[in-house]
């Protein structure tokens, strides 16, 4: 009879971790940026002072000149450093719920449409296509008109435009996975459709989902920033990078730092998510590794 003649070599924890790092080459810079984002977002109040207090005596101080305000102050004297760091928190507070809700809705729709086919698929996809057909900014503006600006408005607006992307992507994956023999066999076996979606389809689309999440976070951040920039997102004065860029717009040549620094941070964070998403996609790709 056949015998398995390989025994896995036992590595110590440390050796295993080092080997994994060497084999998979994680994107250090991106990971550092993301870690800093998370850290600042979670512990903002312990790191910096109050981002909301105006200090009219300390208005428009340029960066790197005053030890108390390393990144300068804005038009009304609010400390830039504090605002930038608290901006991380806004990012987390807006993107996290939006992405989570969007992916829950999108995955459910995609799974159902992809597996059920027929009229269920047609109806769901028409709704999805309609949502995708509108430019996200427009839809967001429309929603914000009804719900109002501010935190909740932004989250609803962002979720409403993002779920459709997930739905489309997941449906595509499901269409191909459902043809694989093991799904067909489960159907023959009499496994219920819900079980098939849960046990067979979901785990095999999760990889795509994870990659999509990392890439969509960048989009969501940009969308929020754009909404804030247009004045229909967070309220002015809030420490959100989009707002900050907008505020500095009028006096770009004189108080350039008010717009530049938040702009740089937006760029860095979005790029970090994109690099991470790319790395994740390669990491999870069964053809490049032996299998996941």
């Amino acid at each position: 009879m056949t015998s398995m003649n390989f025994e896995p070599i036992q590595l110590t924890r440390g050796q295993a971790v080092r080997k994994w790092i060497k084999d998979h080459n994680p994107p250090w810079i991106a990971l550092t940026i993301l870690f800093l984002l998370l850290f600042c977002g979670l512990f903002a109040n312990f790191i910096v002072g109050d981002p909301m207090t105006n200090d009219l005596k300390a208005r428009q101080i340029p960066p790197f000149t005053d030890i108390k305000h390393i990144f300068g102050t804005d038009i009304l004297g609010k400390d830039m450093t504090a605002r930038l760091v608290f901006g991380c928190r806004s990012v987390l507070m807006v993107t996290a719920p939006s992405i989570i809700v969007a992916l829950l809705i999108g995955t459910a729709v995609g799974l159902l449409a992809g597996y059920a086919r027929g009229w269920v698929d047609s109806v769901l996809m028409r709704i999805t296509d309609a949502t995708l057909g509108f430019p996200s900014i427009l839809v967001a503006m429309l929603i914000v008109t009804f719900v109002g600006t501010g935190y909740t408005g932004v989250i609803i607006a962002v979720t409403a435009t993002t779920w459709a992307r997930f739905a489309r992507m997941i449906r595509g994956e499901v269409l191909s996975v459902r043809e694989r023999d093991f799904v067909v066999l489960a159907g023959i076996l009499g496994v219920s459709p819900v079980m098939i979606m849960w046990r067979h389809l979901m785990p095999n689309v999760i990889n795509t989902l994870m990659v999509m999440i990392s890439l969509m976070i960048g989009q969501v951040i940009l969308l929020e920033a754009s909404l804030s920039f247009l004045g229909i997102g967070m309220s002015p004065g809030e420490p959100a990078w989009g707002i900050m860029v907008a505020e500095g717009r009028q006096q770009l040549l004189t108080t350039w730092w008010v717009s530049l620094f938040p702009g740089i941070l937006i760029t860095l964070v979005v790029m970090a998510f994109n690099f991470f998403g790319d790395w994740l996609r390669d990491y999870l790709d069964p053809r490049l590794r032996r299998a996941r």
Partner: protein
Amino acid sequence: MAAIDNALIQVNDLKKHYPVTKGAITKTLVGTVKAIDGVSFTINKGETFSLVGESGCGKTTTTKMILMSEPPTEGVITYEGADMAQFSSPARKEFKSSVQAVFQDPWSSLNPKMRVRDIIAEPIVTHEKVTNNEINERVNELLGVVGMHPFHAERYPHEFSGGQRQRIAIARALSTRPKLMVLDEPVSALDVSIRAQVLNLLKELQQTYELSYLMIAHNLATVKYMSHQVAVMYLGKIVELGDPKTIFGDPQHPYTKALISAALPSHPRLQREELVLTGEVPSPIDPPAGCVFRTRCPYVEEHQPDNEMGLVEVSPGHWVDKCSVPCK
């Protein structure tokens, strides 16, 4: 046909037609794909019944009918004497656990995200209420039966070779103690030296558990090695049916003869007389009237292709379509 008492599955004048429509909103019928067009046979308990034929002959569709993946257009299939179309819900569920399948591609048959234990146990948990301990016991027993070890249960499919994955697929199929297994090219995707291992395993299992197999295979030697009955199909019809010794030793239908002559020799000196068919395989959309083989048959002049097709018993247990049976 064969003794009714021993019959597990009886197929009677089975037809499956797929309409071909044009237009997205107002669908107009432009043709019909007659995937199977009047097929009858019996699968006996503990025996292997093989379907042989080339692409488009309808063998895959026949298995779909037997597996109840799709309903037939016409005709009756009985399981242990009962008409499958009339199954009540519990009868249908019981049927699903009694009939299992093993497919050709060992890389696509197993969910890469599931452990081997869960893969093998899935049929059990779908149909029975069992405790975790019972599941483990049965999974380990099944792994032993297919020549693998209990410690394989913790692993994932990608850690195994093609032959081993096929064994896992067989273990899964055995898990609900089925009476019939549908084997669709079970060894074609495996390495030559592994094929014998898996075929022998299937033979042993058949003897131990009185399993019936409905097998599709294109390799005639494999069919001969495994089968008790063989049906040769062409364009949705059976053109010849009998036991392998007779079919391969004394083929009557020209298509059977062509298939055998196209089979590769087992020794360079044993070259077969070549019967090369003219033309391409016609499409199953609106096949020729009368004998479906008439467009490629080298003896069509001597036959009666205008008559409707139907099997005639030329010797006990050996049936041939009447078109090629010379009229006396």
